[in-house]
């Protein structure tokens, strides 16, 4: 547990010093929100319906910039070699990185939320507090799988190209669930419980499998 904490604090501290990941994510997500607003000119009912999708796509694009260089620091400074030689399991390193990236993306979402509400003139007709359940669950699905697949693509020629190619198909059911849940909450039609359960199940399954297989990936070299 302390190993996990050590890794996590280290990642957070490094990010706090440069703030480069969060800043680029923030800007990218903002651009996506604005672009979609221009492209679809959402108003009223239509706005409520598509905003779930827009939030998710904005989160997706924003996370890619963080995930693409998720392991860059570790590669540059031979941290992975050190980890392989250490007697501890790699899953602490992995989980810490997932939590750190999760926090970064969540911060971006929190900052962007008021902007989003304004641009899309959103009114939340359903239980708004459930958004605080859906967004983290969906973001966790993205970040957990994304960090794992980023580790898979470390040794590939086109790392930035490969990561979205292998991440997006597998992420699709979570994307669907997130979009539909947010849509249900915003329009107040009460269909979201099913999707929240799907997201929770998805998170549990894939986080567990990732933790089990991370050492395999780490020692594949």
């Amino acid at each position: 547990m302390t190993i996990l904490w050590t890794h996590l604090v280290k990642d957070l501290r490094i990010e706090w010093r440069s703030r480069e990941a969060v800043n680029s994510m923030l800007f990218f997500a903002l651009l996506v929100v604005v672009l979609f607003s221009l492209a679809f000119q959402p108003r009223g009912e239509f706005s409520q319906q598509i905003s779930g999708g827009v939030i998710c796509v904005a989160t997706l694009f924003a996370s890619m910039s963080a995930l693409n260089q998720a392991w860059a620091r570790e590669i540059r400074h031979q941290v992975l070699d050190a980890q392989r030689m250490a007697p501890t399991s790699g899953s602490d390193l992995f989980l810490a990185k997932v939590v750190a990236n999760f926090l970064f993306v969540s911060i971006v979402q929190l900052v962007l939320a008021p902007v989003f509400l304004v641009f899309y003139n959103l009114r939340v007709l359903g239980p708004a507090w459930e958004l605080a359940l859906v967004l983290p669950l969906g973001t966790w699905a993205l970040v957990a799988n994304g960090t794992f697949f980023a580790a898979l693509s470390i040794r590939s020629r086109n790392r930035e190209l490969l990561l979205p190619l292998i991440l997006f198909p597998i992420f699709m059911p979570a994307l669907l669930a997130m979009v539909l849940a947010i849509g249900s909450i915003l329009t107040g039609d009460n269909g979201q419980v099913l999707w929240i359960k799907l997201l929770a199940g998805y998170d549990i399954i894939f986080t567990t499998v990732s933790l089990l297989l991370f050492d395999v990936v780490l020692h594949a070299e």
Partner: protein
Amino acid sequence: MKKFAIILYTAVTLALLAWGFYQAWYVAPADAMQGEIYRVIFYHVPSASVAFLFFAISLLGSIGFLAYRRSHPDWAQRSDAWALAGAEVGVVFCTVVLLTGPIWGRRAWGIWWTWDARLTTTLVLWLIYVSYLLLRRFVAGPQMQTLAAVLGIFGALDVPIVYMSNRWWRTQHPAPVFGGDSSAGMAPAMVTALMWNMLAWLAWGILILGIRYRVERQHQKIAEREAQAALIA
């Protein structure tokens, strides 16, 4: 002896395919509602079945590779060859499904595509295994097989989730379903034709799968010989 068996098997496969075609076009009657276009089913449904079967074989290969890579290296290599062959030939059959489906749908139901559970799952499956093949192509070095095996497992894990999520979505928001219930209301002659084509395409699939496996094993041996030569040199 082995060569003769292969030639015989190929001949039988081609005969089955020809017989299946005959059944599909001339024996099976026209559909009451769809007329002639429904005959796409005789190529569409068997291709889907073979694709899913071969993706399952690929999953077993991935698991086998991870399980044997320390204890029985040769078994691991064979498993990896099956994983690749299953994935690649599966993608070929899945491509056929995704191409013939919209052609059928456009004439029968007026739409090229719909996001129902089966179509969406098939599309996502195709995307997952294409990404698997891309990983194998883009990642260099001996660890590629391990990473590919891991991705293969992740991908296979996702498939039932995709299917279920889409079913639930369509329970909440009903929408057109391609093909309806594929075996509901089919005349006996149609079912027979479908069975013959299932057998024929399965036979063809196995033939192609076997060829792909052989080609991959040859590639593995060449790569190993080159690696050893590099060590000695």
